[in-house]
């Protein structure tokens, strides 16, 4: 599969290869349903966009890649290890931003939420707290530290989730629709922040604009690779297919 140098990236001085990802004939059944079906791909770009219809398996793939669930069959490797088997390595290597912030937040207050991951990395209490506060202040949100997560708006929760992941400084961040529900300034701010992120990014999104500067695109369809390659080539094809589907008056053509 082609690896394309990230010409548009605002962080050109960085190495152009990222975290190596290898999937070989990966299948996943959930409750008898084949959600991921013979998925094979190999890539190590720094910026990989993932597109596909609702229910095509994008979030499931993100869970597989971060080692939260195991494959039913097939081989999966991230940076040379299996993230489900080797949790310790996975934790240092991969951070996952969940699609639904309510599925990610564990603790009652914002500071606890941010500190948790850092403590898990082995930082002691004071260090973890210091670093968590630093993260908060990098986004101008120090005043959120004692706020209850449940009292935040949807977009605010999303930001908390992102900060907790970024604070752990993984080499690969998997973002499952990170911008859904964020307001324009926060989104742009975040986008700029992610652009300077020196590690690898896998970004799942329904919005083509979000994936503009991405080297490669992975297009999933019904748990299988529909296309993988240069985003300049794939995005137009994807959009054409989607708009055509959207225009059709036979609504029953819609996603499974």
């Amino acid at each position, binding site marked *: 599969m082609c690896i394309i140098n990230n010409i548009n990236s605002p962080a050109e001085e960085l190495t152009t290869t990222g975290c190596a990802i290898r999937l070989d004939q990966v299948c996943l059944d959930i409750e008898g349903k084949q959600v991921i079906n013979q998925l094979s791909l190999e890539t190590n770009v720094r910026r990989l966009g993932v597109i596909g219809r609702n229910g095509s398996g994008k979030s499931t793939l993100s869970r597989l890649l971060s080692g939260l*669930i195991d494959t039913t069959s097939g081989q999966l490797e991230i940076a040379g290890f299996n993230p489900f088997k080797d*949790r310790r390595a996975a934790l240092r290597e991969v951070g996952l931003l969940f699609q639904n912030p309510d599925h*990610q937040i*564990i603790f*009652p207050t914002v500071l606890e939420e941010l500190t948790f991951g850092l403590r898990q990395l082995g930082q002691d209490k004071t260090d973890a707290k210091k670093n968590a506060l630093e993260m908060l202040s990098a986004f101008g949100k120090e005043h959120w530290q004692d706020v209850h997560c449940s009292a935040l708006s949807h977009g605010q929760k999303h930001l908390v989730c992102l900060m*907790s*992941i970024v604070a752990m400084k993984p080499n690969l961040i998997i973002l499952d629709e990170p911008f859904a529900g964020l307001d324009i300034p926060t989104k742009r701010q975040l986008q700029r922040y992610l652009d300077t992120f020196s590690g690898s990014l896998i970004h799942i999104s329904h919005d083509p604009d979000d994936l503009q500067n991405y080297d490669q695109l992975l297009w999933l369809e019904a748990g299988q690779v529909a296309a993988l390659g240069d985003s300049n080539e794939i995005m137009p094809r994807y959009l054409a297919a989607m708009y055509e589907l959207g225009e059709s008056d036979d609504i029953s053509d819609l996603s499974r």
Partner: protein
Amino acid sequence: MISLTSPVETRAHHWPAGLKLGLLSLVSFGLFFVDSIIFHGLFLLFVVVLYALPGALFFKNGWKHLKILWPFAFIIVLWHLITGEAELGLTVVFRMISAVGLANLVTMTTRLSDMIDVVHWLTCPLQRLGFKPRALELAIALVIRMTPVLISKGQNLTLAWRARSNRRSGWRIILPFTVLALDDADHVAEALKARGGLTNQERK
């Protein structure tokens, strides 16, 4: 969803739920007035035959739900062996398996909505005391919704934990889980309210 319901449709599915439940209560109650081990042994055989009638798949499914009784059975028998009342022990075990087996049989062949209709009918006399059968109906539906939801929220929470930790969550997950459950209840309350809650319109 609590999946005691049978994967195959049986003839008993079409019998009135009230009748099945009524019979079940009568028989379960009656079992306590017989002490004969032979009777209980034969009755258990009868229950097994009932499970076998609708075919192999039904039998296998029923067995899955009855299997969980074996540690109880084992321990009761063991204890009675120690106290030297082996026969009493076996009787108690036979009776227990028959009673639970029958109850499961009714559950497996009765749609929940039919079950709720029976409860509705049973509580009708209470209506005059200001009791709202609608509230009970809703509450039943909600428990049936929430039990599996709680379990999957628990699993979700462990995923969230796993995503940022290589240690097991252990007891520290209890408070987040409880808070999550309470929040879920708040959301359900709001969602219910958004669609009328108990102020549902008159039924035709």
